[in-house]
C-alpha cells in the first residue's frame, strides 16, 4: 500500500507534464501568430487561445501543488497576459509572442533547475514581470471602468431571482439559432448545455426541436432554435453560446411581440408531408409513430394526422398513410432521407405549405378517444468515446525488460543443449514453442519502446521562430510526420542533431529577406522538417530553400584548413566536395555567429548518426537550397547483423554499415604506397584484414571473403575468415568498465548463449583513418 506522505515522489510526473505544457503553449502561440498574420479562422483562433490559457493555468496549478512557488508565479503572470489576449484586450503582436516565448524560456530553465535539484529560485524573472505588468497596466484601467459600469447596469435591473421562484424577466425577446459544425461529435451534450446556459440568463419560451429532446440528451440535428426573453444584449447572448466548442454559427434576432406565432426565421419552411407505408407491413403503426418522433427532432411538428396515439394503434388513413405539418429549416431531401431510413415506408410526398386540410376529408370515419401512453422517444445513438488506456512507463523498466528477455534467450540456449543431449523430442518441441513466444515478446517490447518523433519535434517551432527573429530572418517552418515512431534511445540522441541541422539551415541557409527579394525568392525562407517511414527505417529530412552549399567554397575552405590538397580538390566532383563538410573541423560559415557556434561541426552530427547505426547524406544546389537526409533504424535494441568469423571467434557487423560482400583472391590484391588495395568496378578500395585491426595473427589464403563498408567519404573492404549468417541481434551495452574500448558498439547473445561482440565500423577506423 502506498501512503502519500509528501509530493516529491511525483517530481517526474510533474516535470514531464510541465514540459508537455510548455511545448503545447509555444506551438499554439506560434500558430496563433500565423493566423493573426494571415487573417485565418476566428474559431480556430479562439480554440488556440483557450488551449494556451488552459495550459498556463494547469502549469500554474501543478507547480503550486509541488510547492514551486516561483514557477507558479511566473506561470500565473503569463496566464494573466494570455487572459488579456483571450478577452481581446491585447492584440497578438510579434512582441507579445516574444514575451510569451521569454516566459516559456524562463519556465523551461526553472524546470531544468528543478530537475537538477537546485529549485526554481535561480532564474531572474523580474524583467519579464515588469514587461508583462507594463502591458497589463494599460488595459487594467479600462477594464475597471468597464466592470464598474456593468455593476451599475446590474443594479438597474429590476429582477428578483431566487432558486424557487421564476421571476418575471424584463427584457427583449430574441430568436436564437445555433448551428453546429458538420463533424460535431457531442451535439447532444452541447445542445443541452446551450439550453441550460440560456436558462440561466433568461426565460426560454420555445425551442426547436422540443425541449424534452434536448433535455434528454437526444438531440441529433444540425441546428437548434430558441425563443428567449432576456435582458442581455444579442452580443452577450452570442458570446454565451459561442463559448461552446463545435458551435459553427449563432444567429440572434430580435423578435417583435406582434409577430409571435409567425414563422420566426425566413428559411424555416412549412411542409405538409404524406407518408405512405407498405400496406402489408407488420408494425406499421409503431413505425409511423417512430417516424413522427424523428420528425420532432428536426423541427416544429405542428400537426399530425391522424393523431399520434391513433397512429400507434395502426389507425392510418385508408389503412396505409398519414400526414404531418412540419416547420423546419431542413430541406426536402433531408426530410425524405430521414423518413426513408425507417423500414416499410412505401412513399414520401412533401408539399410546401399547409395542405393538411386535403387529408381531413379523407378520414372521417374512425374516431377513438382512448389515450395511450407514449413510449419513450427512441434514444439516439450516442457516439462512443474512447477512454484513454495509456499508462506511463519509465524507459528504465523497458530496458530492464529487454535485458531480461536477453537472459531468457541465453537460458533457452542452454536448455536446448540439454534437450539435445537427452534426445527428448517432447522437450525440444516445447522449447521450440518457447522460442516463438520469446520472439513475440521481443517484438512487443520493441513496440513499447517506440515514441512518436513529435516529442522532439514539438520543441522546434519555438526554437526556429526565436532564431529567425534573432537573426532578422523570416522563416516559414513546417513539420510533417510527427506521428512517426522511433525507438526511445534514438529519439533522445536525435534531438541535438536536428537542433544543429535546423540552426544551420536558418543561419547559413536562409538568406536575409532583402537578399531573397533581390534574388526573386519569396521574402520568407522555407524550412521543412519531415519524418517518413520506409520499411525498417525512418527518414528524417531537413530541407531549406536558402542559398545552398557552394562546392567551390567548400573546396577552398578544405584546402585552407589543410584537409585536402589542391590536387585532390581539382579532381573532386561537386557532390564529393559537398561531403567535405562532414570532415572534422570544417565550418562553412563566413562569420562565426553565436547561433551555430564554433567547434561543433557536421562531423559531430555524422558521428552521432553513425552511433545510431544510421547514415546522413546531403544534397544541395547553389541558390536553390540544401537538403539533409537522415536514415535511421527504427529500433536500436534489435538490429540486423551479419555474423563473421575470424580466428575461431564470431563477431557481428550491423547490416546498415555493409554495402556488399565479396570474395577476394590473393592474386587480385595490389599494393599502393605499402597498403593493400583492390580494384572493384573501377574503384580503388583499401583492403584490411579484420585480424590486423584486432591485432590477431592470420594465415594468408588464396581466397578470402570480405565485406565492403562505407566510411562516408571512403569505401573500405574488410577481410574475414568466414561469413556466417544474417541474424536479428539484441544489442547489449558493454557496461561502464569497457566503454572506452574502441571498435565495438556492444555485445549480443546468440541463441546458443554465446556472447558475441558487435563491431562498430566507424570507431574501428577512427584510429587509422588519417592514414587512408
Amino acid at each position, binding site marked *: 500500500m502506498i501512503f502519500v*506522505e509528501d509530493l516529491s515522489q511525483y517530481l517526474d510526473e510533474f516535470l514531464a507534464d510541465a514540459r508537455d505544457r510548455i511545448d503545447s503553449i509555444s506551438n499554439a502561440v506560434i500558430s496563433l501568430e500565423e493566423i493573426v498574420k494571415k487573417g485565418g479562422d476566428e474559431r480556430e483562433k479562439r480554440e488556440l487561445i483557450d488551449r494556451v490559457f488552459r495550459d498556463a493555468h494547469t502549469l500554474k496549478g501543478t507547480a503550486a501543488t509541488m*510547492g514551486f512557488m516561483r514557477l507558479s508565479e511566473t506561470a500565473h503572470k503569463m496566464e494573466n497576459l494570455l487572459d488579456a489576449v483571450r478577452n481581446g484586450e491585447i492584440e497578438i503582436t510579434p512582441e507579445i509572442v516574444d514575451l510569451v516565448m521569454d516566459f516559456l524560456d524562463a519556465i523551461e530553465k526553472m524546470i531544468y533547475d528543478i530537475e537538477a535539484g537546485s529549485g526554481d529560485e535561480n532564474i531572474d524573472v523580474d524583467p519579464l514581470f515588469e514587461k508583462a505588468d507594463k502591458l497589463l497596466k494599460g488595459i487594467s484601467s479600462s477594464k475597471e471602468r468597464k466592470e464598474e459600469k456593468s455593476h451599475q447596469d446590474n443594479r438597474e435591473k429590476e429582477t*428578483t431571482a431566487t432558486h424557487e421562484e421564476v421571476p418575471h424577466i424584463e427584457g427583449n425577446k430574441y430568436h436564437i439559432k445555433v448551428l453546429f459544425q458538420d463533424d460535431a461529435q457531442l451535439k447532444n451534450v452541447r445542445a443541452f448545455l446551450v439550453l441550460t446556459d440560456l436558462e440561466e440568463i433568461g426565460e426560454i419560451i420555445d425551442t426547436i426541436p422540443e425541449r424534452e429532446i434536448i433535455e434528454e440528451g437526444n438531440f441529433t440535428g444540425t441546428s437548434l432554435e430558441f425563443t428567449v426573453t432576456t435582458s442581455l444584449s444579442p452580443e452577450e447572448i452570442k458570446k454565451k453560446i459561442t463559448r461552446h466548442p463545435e458551435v459553427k454559427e449563432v444567429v440572434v434576432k430580435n423578435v417583435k411581440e406582434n409577430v409571435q406565432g409567425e414563422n420566426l426565421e425566413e428559411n424555416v419552411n412549412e411542409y405538409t408531408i404524406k407518408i405512405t407505408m407498405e400496406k402489408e407491413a407488420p408494425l406499421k403503426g409503431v413505425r409511423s409513430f417512430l417516424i413522427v418522433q424523428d420528425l420532432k427532432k428536426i423541427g416544429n411538428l405542428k400537426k399530425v394526422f391522424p393523431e399520434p396515439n391513433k397512429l400507434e394503434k395502426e389507425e392510418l388513413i385508408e389503412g396505409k398513410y398519414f400526414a404531418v405539418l412540419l416547420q423546419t429549416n431542413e430541406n426536402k431531401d433531408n426530410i425524405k432521407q430521414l423518413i426513408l431510413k425507417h423500414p416499410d415506408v412505401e412513399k414520401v410526398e412533401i408539399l410546401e405549405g399547409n395542405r393538411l386540410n386535403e387529408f381531413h376529408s379523407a378520414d372521417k370515419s374512425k374516431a377513438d378517444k382512448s389515450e395511450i401512453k407514449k413510449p419513450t422517444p427512441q434514444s439516439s445513438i450516442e457516439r462512443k468515446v474512447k477512454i484513454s488506456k495509456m499508462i506511463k512507463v519509465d524507459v528504465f523498466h523497458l530496458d530492464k525488460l529487454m535485458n531480461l528477455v536477453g537472459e531468457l534467450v541465453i537460458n533457452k540456449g542452454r536448455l536446448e543443449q540439454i534437450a539435445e543431449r537427452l534426445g527428448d523430442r517432447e522437450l525440444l518441441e516445447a522449447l521450440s514453442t518457447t522460442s516463438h513466444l520469446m520472439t513475440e515478446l521481443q517484438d512487443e517490447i520493441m513496440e513499447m519502446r517506440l515514441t512518436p518523433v513529435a516529442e522532439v519535434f514539438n520543441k522546434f517551432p519555438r526554437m526556429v521562430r526565436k532564431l529567425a527573429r534573432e537573426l532578422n530572418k523570416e522563416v516559414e517552418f513546417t513539420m510533417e510526420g510527427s506521428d512517426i515512431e522511433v525507438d526511445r534511445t534514438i529519439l533522445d540522441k536525435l534531438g541535438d542533431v536536428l537542433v544543429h541541422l535546423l540552426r544551420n539551415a536558418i543561419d547559413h541557409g536562409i538568406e536575409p529577406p532583402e537578399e531573397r527579394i533581390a534574388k526573386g525568392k519569396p521574402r520568407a525562407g522555407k524550412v521543412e522538417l519531415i519524418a517518413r517511414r520506409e520499411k525498417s527505417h525512418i527518414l528524417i529530412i531537413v530541407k531549406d530553400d536558402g542559398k545552398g552549399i557552394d562546392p567551390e567554397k567548400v573546396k577552398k575552405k578544405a584546402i585552407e584548413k589543410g584537409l585536402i590538397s589542391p590536387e585532390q580538390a581539382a579532381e573532386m566532383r561537386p557532390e564529393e566536395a559537398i561531403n567535405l563538410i562532414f570532415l572534422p573541423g570544417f565550418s562553412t560559415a563566413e562569420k562565426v555567429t553565436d547561433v551555430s557556434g564554433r567547434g561543433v561541426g557536421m562531423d559531430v552530427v555524422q558521428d552521432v548518426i553513425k552511433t545510431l547505426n544510421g547514415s546522413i547524406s546531403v544534397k544541395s544546389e547553389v541558390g536553390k537550397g540544401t537538403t539533409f537526409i537522415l536514415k535511421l533504424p527504427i529500433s536500436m535494441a534489435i538490429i540486423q547483423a551479419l555474423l563473421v568469423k575470424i580466428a575461431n571467434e564470431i563477431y557481428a557487423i550491423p547490416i546498415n554499415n555493409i554495402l556488399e560482400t565479396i570474395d577476394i583472391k590473393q592474386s587480385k590484391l595490389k599494393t599502393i604506397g605499402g597498403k593493400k588495395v583492390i580494384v572493384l568496378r573501377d574503384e580503388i578500395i583499401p583492403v584490411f584484414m579484420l585480424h590486423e585491426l584486432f591485432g590477431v595473427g592470420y594465415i594468408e589464403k588464396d581466397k578470402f571473403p570480405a565485406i565492403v563498408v562505407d566510411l562516408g567519404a571512403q569505401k573500405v573492404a574488410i577481410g574475414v575468415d568466414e561469413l556466417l549468417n544474417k541474424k536479428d541481434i539484441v544489442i547489449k551495452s558493454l557496461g561502464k568498465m569497457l566503454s572506452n574500448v574502441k571498435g565495438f558498439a556492444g555485445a549480443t547473445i546468440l541463441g546458443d548463449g554465446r556472447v558475441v561482440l558487435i563491431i562498430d565500423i566507424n570507431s574501428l577506423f577512427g584510429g587509422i583513418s588519417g592514414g587512408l
Partner: protein
Amino acid sequence: MSRKIRVLVVDDSPFIRKVLKDIINSDPELEVCCEAHNGVEAIEAVKTLKPDVITLDIEMPQLNGLDALKFIMNKYPTPVIMISSLTQEGAEATIRALEYGAIDFIPKPSSYLSTGIKELRLEIITKIKEAAKIPPRFLKFRRIRLLESQKRIREKKDVAKSIVAIAASTGGPQSLLRVIPKLPAEIKSGILIVQHMPPGFTKSFAQRLDRVSKIEVKEAEDGDLVEGGKVYVAPGDFHMEVTIRAGKPRITLNKKPKVHGVRPAADPMMISAARAFGRKTIGVVMTGMGRDGAQGLAEIKKRGGTTIAQDKETSIIFGMPKAAIELGVVDYIVPLDRIAETIVRAEKKVLAG
C-alpha cells in the same frame, strides 16, 4: 467487507490524476476504477462504467468540468466532488458547481495548503466515502439563474437587535443558497453564518449569496458592526465571534485553535452570540458532517434563545443536525425550504416578547 467504492478521477493533468489516484487507492475501501482527462471522456466513463463517486476538475479541454457536471447530473446522476484550484475563479466555479448539484469539493492537492498532505489525504478519503452514501434524491441537476437580485437600499442601518447564527458544512453552500435569498428585506436580525470552507472560497460564496439575496451579504471583517438585515459569512481559517463593545455588537475574528478540526467552527460563534444577545438569539444547524453547532445550540437554549435544525429528509449529510437533535436542544426540526420562514417567525417571537 463489501465491494470497494469505485471512483472516477477526471483531470486533464496526468500529474494530478496520479496524485489523486495514489491517495484514493491507498485506502482499502476505495479504488480508482477509471480515469478521464476531459469532460467528454468523463461522460462516456460515467455512462459505461457507472462509478460510485466522481472527482471532477474544472478547467479541462473539449468539455470543461462545469459543463460535464451539468450533463452528468441531468442524465446519469452520480455523486460528484469538485477538485478546485485555490483561485478566485476556482472558488466561483466551485460555488456554481455546488449549485448545479455537485456534492462537495476539495482543494487541489498543493504543498502550500495550510493543511499538510496527510490531512488532505484524510479529507479526500472521508469526503469520497461520505459522497458514496448520499441518497439518490440529492443527486440531480439543479438549474440556476445568474440574474442579480434587486436590493432595497436602506437609508439608515440599524444595529441588530437580535441575532441569527447559522452553522453548515457539507452540502451547506447549495442549501444556504436556498435559505438566505428567501429572507425578507425587512428582517431585523443580524445574521451570522459559519460555513466550513477554506479561505478564498468564503468570499466567493458570500458574493454569490449577495447577488441572489434581497439582503446584503458580506464576508465578515474584524471589527464589523453587526447591523440588522445584513449577513456576515465567517472567512475561511478564522473563527468568528460577536461581542458587545461600547454597547454595540461587533464581529471579532481570531485564529484560536481549530474546534472539531475546523476553523471557522460554529460552536464558538453560537456561544458568543448567545452570550451577547441572550434570548434574542436564534441558532440554526444545517446539513453537514460531524457535530459542530450542537454545543452552540445547547448554549443558546440555555440562555433562552430559539433553536432550529434541518430535518433528515433534506439534509445532504444528516450529521450536525442529528448531533444537535440527539442532544435534545432543538426547538424546531424543519425541511430546508421552511428554514427561512421559521427564522422569520422565531424573530417575530423573540422581538415581541
